[in-house]
């Protein structure tokens, strides 16, 4: 480890970290917002479920580097546009979460839905105030997987020259220099752990009725 280099590059590393956070978190939020209505749709309609889950599965098989390269054709963006990364990771997040949201809503006990109905909750109210909150633990488990893999996938974009922590890997490779590579890996893992922890906290905050046991 060359700490002198680390000191000189500090500003640059913070810049790359900032981009990495943006490129990993924005798709996570967008993906969740898109997956919620789609998942609800799949949950409601037995015919739509296999269709949506099937398409999601196919999208998930496309390798990340290929998706990064193909999206400019669809979006009309430049190959170096960070928007491609946001779009690609949003697609992966949606593909992962559609099924999770549908299964989460399916997992709500029928008794709970009936009780909500009996207490006068209408369809939309029951969904927002009863079914979705009860499904939160399942959804956040899926969200954790998406968050952690997003952090890792963002770094692939370095091969196309889009700046984020992955740029430290390519830089280290070109210079045959270990310090940036190790810094990049460590920061990626820490970032993934922080996002993972935040989702666990959010889950606990949204579901205060669950017993306080460490669920991992």
């Amino acid at each position, binding site marked *: 480890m060359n700490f002198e280099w680390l000191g000189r590059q500090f500003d640059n590393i913070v810049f790359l970290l900032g981009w990495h956070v943006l490129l990993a978190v924005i798709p996570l939020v967008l993906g969740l917002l898109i997956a919620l209505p789609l998942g609800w749709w799949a949950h409601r309609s037995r015919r739509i479920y296999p269709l949506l889950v099937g398409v999601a*599965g*196919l999208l*998930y*098989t*496309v*390798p*990340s*580097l*290929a*998706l990064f*390269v*193909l999206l400019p*054709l669809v979006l009309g963006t430049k*190959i170096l546009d960070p928007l491609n990364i946001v779009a690609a990771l949003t697609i992966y997040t949606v593909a992962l979460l559609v099924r999770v949201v549908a299964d989460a809503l399916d997992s709500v006990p029928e008794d709970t839905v009936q009780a909500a109905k009996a207490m006068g909750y209408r369809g939309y109210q029951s969904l927002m105030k009863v079914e979705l909150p009860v499904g939160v633990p399942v959804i956040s488990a899926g969200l954790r*997987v998406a968050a*952690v*893999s997003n*952090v*890792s996938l963002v*770094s*692939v974009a*370095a*091969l*196309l*020259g889009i700046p984020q*922590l*992955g740029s*430290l*890997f*390519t830089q*280290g*490779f070109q210079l*045959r220099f*270990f310090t940036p*590579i*190790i810094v*990049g*890996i460590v920061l*990626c*893992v820490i970032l*993934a*752990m922080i996002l*993972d922890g935040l989702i666990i906290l959010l889950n606990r905050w949204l579901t205060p009725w669950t017993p306080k046991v460490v669920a*991992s």
Partner: protein
Amino acid sequence: MNYLFDPAHWSGADGIPTLIGEHLLYSLIALAIAAVIAVPLGIYIGVTGKGVFMIAGLANALRALPSVGLLILLVLLISPAFPSRMGYILPSLIVLVLLAVPPILTNTYAGVRAVDAAAVDAARGMGFRTMKILTDVQLPCALPLVLSGVRSALLQIISTATIAAYISLGGLGRLLIDGKAQNDYSQMVAGAVLVALLALFFDQLLAFITRRVVSPGLTRRTIKSAPVAEPVKTPVTV
């Protein structure tokens, strides 16, 4: 698309068929090594219950590790020791195996664990020995989950092998990386399309194999509609 349909790119030492061949060769070697490690280990952990703590932690920790960083780190560490092409093939294979082991391991373990205890007891009651229970009852029952682990492992491998072109491994990733270096977008698109098709093809192939080899008794494919067991009502006699 021009690149893809130019016949000149479909032959020769760096033609598309060669690249596909290389991609498959590295992918299948890595998958075979990963399966040889992960399946027996998963069975062992599933049957004995030893080392369960390893499973969850390993899968999560490896997902957080950025594969590009890992790949480049290993190349810089290993390549000085091997002057030949092994200098980048070996680290690539290590990373591919490393990424493929967790899905196979966790699914094999989960598959063996999920086998109905009554089925195992029934087999033992019929006089099956432990080894025969494993090969004739537990493994066939665990097979769908094991294969689904192999499926996600292979997708991960095909995807990561593409990235390994950056550290000069052969395969379809070459088109993406060389295209980038030469500012040839149509070459990059050709590579991306081919890699996506390769991944889709193998995903569907494994789905097909899974449907063929999994015992119909497990999928209940042959049963049109499973009859719902109604509790026998005894007439109430007053």
